């Protein structure tokens, strides 16, 4: 029983990452009708915002410590971050320690700008082109972006830990009166889950309750009619692209403590997030979120030892198996609209 509860919790957390990426992907697809293969790259750039900020805050000057030697036997150069020098080791250390949450502030403007540039500079010219062209050009862009990151940051993962405050895990089981350690959950993952919930909630609220959101939703349903009403829908779509990029980027920033970011993390998520979007139904925002959580939970269940022992290899294929079954039984995914992407 508690094992099942544990995996549901786990799945919710995994699912929140899937849902966040799929949400951004669906925003772009739903509003602009563009299949964006570079969306994983946006996630990755967000993560590298955190890396960059961490590096920036850790910028150091070197002092020679003659009592120690480096790997060549020369006196060791000890690095001291400027922030620690300026604010004292305690405050300075705390600033570096909090670089991931601080990176949110950096990532929002950066990602919105990246989104704007991408939309105005490239995607705009592909609205009327076939989906295959969109896929190819954004795939090319994804490769270019990740190679640029690799050029500057290398191929290896870069550790970007969460603030010390969030180290360790919450003994959820003990809280609800079960055996100790039966259900533990890392604090940072709880933060991530809450963060995802807030982002998803605010995107929905934004679309639901603001005039801007209303126009965009109308535009998603029927772009031409809205255009006829004299509303400049293109400009709003550009802004939506910026928002979608920011959502992907923030998902990336907050993900860095969970898995050390590397240049190909976007590609790792890309296929999966497409599966999530399609299972949810192309163009449906609630569908994307629902499918994200659903696949997260199913993936968690499939990773249980008991399940793997029963069906060997199920943890390797569960996502795809579920995608196949859902697409065959529900032709347009869980909540997809008719006629989207079927030609």
């Amino acid at each position, binding site marked *: 029983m508690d094992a099942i509860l544990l995996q549901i919790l786990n799945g919710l957390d995994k699912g929140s990452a899937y849902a966040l990426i799929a949400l951004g992907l669906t925003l772009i697809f739903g509003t602009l009708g563009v299949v964006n293969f570079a969306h994983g790259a946006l996630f990755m750039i967000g993560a590298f915002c955190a890396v960059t900020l961490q590096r920036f805050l850790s910028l150091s000057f070197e002092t020679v410590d003659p009592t120690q030697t480096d*790997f060549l036997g020369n006196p060791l150069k000890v690095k001291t971050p400027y922030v620690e020098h300026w604010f004292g080791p305690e405050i300075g250390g705390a600033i570096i320690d909090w670089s991931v949450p601080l990176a949110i502030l950096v990532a929002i403007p950066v990602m919105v700008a990246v989104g704007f540039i991408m939309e105005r500079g490239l995607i705009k010219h592909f609205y009327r082109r076939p989906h295959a062209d969109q896929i190819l050009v954004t795939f090319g862009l994804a490769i270019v972006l990740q190679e640029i990151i690799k050029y500057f940051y290398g191929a290896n993962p870069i550790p970007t830990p969460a603030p010390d405050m969030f180290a*360790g895990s919450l003994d959820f089981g003990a809280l609800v009166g079960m055996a100790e350690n039966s259900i533990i959950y890392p604090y940072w993952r709880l933060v991530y889950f809450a963060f995802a919930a807030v982002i998803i909630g605010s995107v929905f609220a934004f679309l639901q309750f603001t005039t801007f959101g209303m126009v965009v939703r109308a535009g998603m349903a029927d772009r031409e009619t809205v255009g006829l009403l004299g509303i400049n829908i293109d400009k709003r779509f550009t802004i939506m692209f910026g928002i979608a990029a920011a959502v992907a980027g923030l998902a990336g920033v907050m993900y860095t403590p969970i898995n050390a970011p590397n240049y190909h993390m976007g590609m790792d998520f890309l296929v999966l997030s497409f599966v999530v979007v399609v299972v949810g139904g192309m163009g449906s925002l609630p569908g994307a979120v629902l499918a994200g959580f659903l696949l997260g939970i199913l993936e968690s269940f499939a990773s249980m030892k008991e399940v793997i022992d029963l069906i060997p290899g199920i943890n390797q294929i569960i996502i795809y198996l579920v995608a196949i079954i859902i697409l065959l039984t529900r032709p347009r995914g869980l909540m997809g609209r008719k006629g989207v992407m079927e030609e």
Partner: protein
Amino acid sequence: MSNSNFTRRGVLKTSAVAGAGLALPTIFTNRANAFTNEPTGSTVTLGFNVPQTGPYADEGADELRAYQLAVEHLNGEGDGGMINTFSSKTLDGTGILGKKVEYVTGDTQTKSDAARASARSMIEKDGAIMITGGSSSGVAVAVQALCQEAGVIFMAGLTHSNDTTGKDKKANGFRHFFNSYMSGAALAPVLANAYGNDRKAYHLTADYNWGYTTEEAVRNSTEALGWETVAAVKTPLTQTDFSSYIAPVLQSGADVLVLNHYGGNMVNSLTNAVQFGLRDKMVNDKNFEIVVPLYSRLMARGAGANVKGIYGSTNWHWSLSQGFTTPDGTEVAPDAASAAFVKSFGEKYGFPPSQAAHTCYCQTILYADAVNRAGSFNPCAVVEALEGFEFDGLGNGPTLYRAEDHQCFKDVLVVRGKENPQSEFDLLEVVEVTPVGQVTYDPSIFGGDLGSCNPGA
């Protein structure tokens, strides 16, 4: 900065020029050489086939640095590095058999198809006489089989699976790096010593050949010392988030988690495990522990502070060059060979070499020396020279290239993540140098058939 290191088939330099003035084409049948790519000019070409793209690109880059360094040393440039400490003294800075060493590079992408394509282009286009490199067992086994067919020598880079010199061994292939079996054999006593004989282990195993052999090795050797294996769960190679595999560990009653993962998998699973606070927990009244059988310092950097205090094994570590005291009080004197290597590598590139770089450097030197001793580039002669070759002075102490499976037998390092690292390179400390006798095994246990050497043509 203008040394040309891409050469063309030696054949050309001699015979084709002679035919230059002829109007009619000269037709050769299958090159009248004694063996594939016999170097007939004044140079010899080696093929360095390393991952330059994909997740292991940094490891590949480090391997490439080591190769370039080895080529310099063979050609008499630089300070000579480990050539000076190497027990065999045939290398004198005049290249190999008096021919200047040139090289070509290729990208394996850590995919066996791409690695073979790249190796074939080196053999067919660039006339490489030896192929070396790689950073995974899949690639090593694939390229080794290719070299066997083509009739060139393969000197494996980083490959840790038992299969490379076990069931998939080939006469033309040689491995200097250690393997899963040795990791298990070296680790188990140290683990038993540190954590006691009464432990319950939970294995997370990468779901492919290397993972299987590593899990098996660690299980067998720890169970022999009294440990119990509670469970072993296979994880997909493409997994990035291991939380759903790690969360149930505590419930299982296990008090040790063994992560049979490498590269990105290792970084992620270790990071996740530490995140879950496993190491702060007490299970069965013992402190919960995590073990990573194969450490790579380059990759361990990705796990950051999470590696602190975690045991694993490694083929070589640069700190051997400085000497140290192990936790049980044994003094280990500085190793002159390692010091020479770290010095020439560090001065050239500004940071210490990785174990991948070390093994690649050694392989190149070992090959060059074998050719010199054999007096011929003929693969069969080289195989003969390497089989049963005993040497010292390449950083791992006295070493044997065993004739039965072409595997090097040498001391294995058991390491632990350092609590207070001095610098970003100072992540691991050597806990024990496991003597070679303890990790030696009977070559027949993994099956496979070496076949006989193939000189090609």
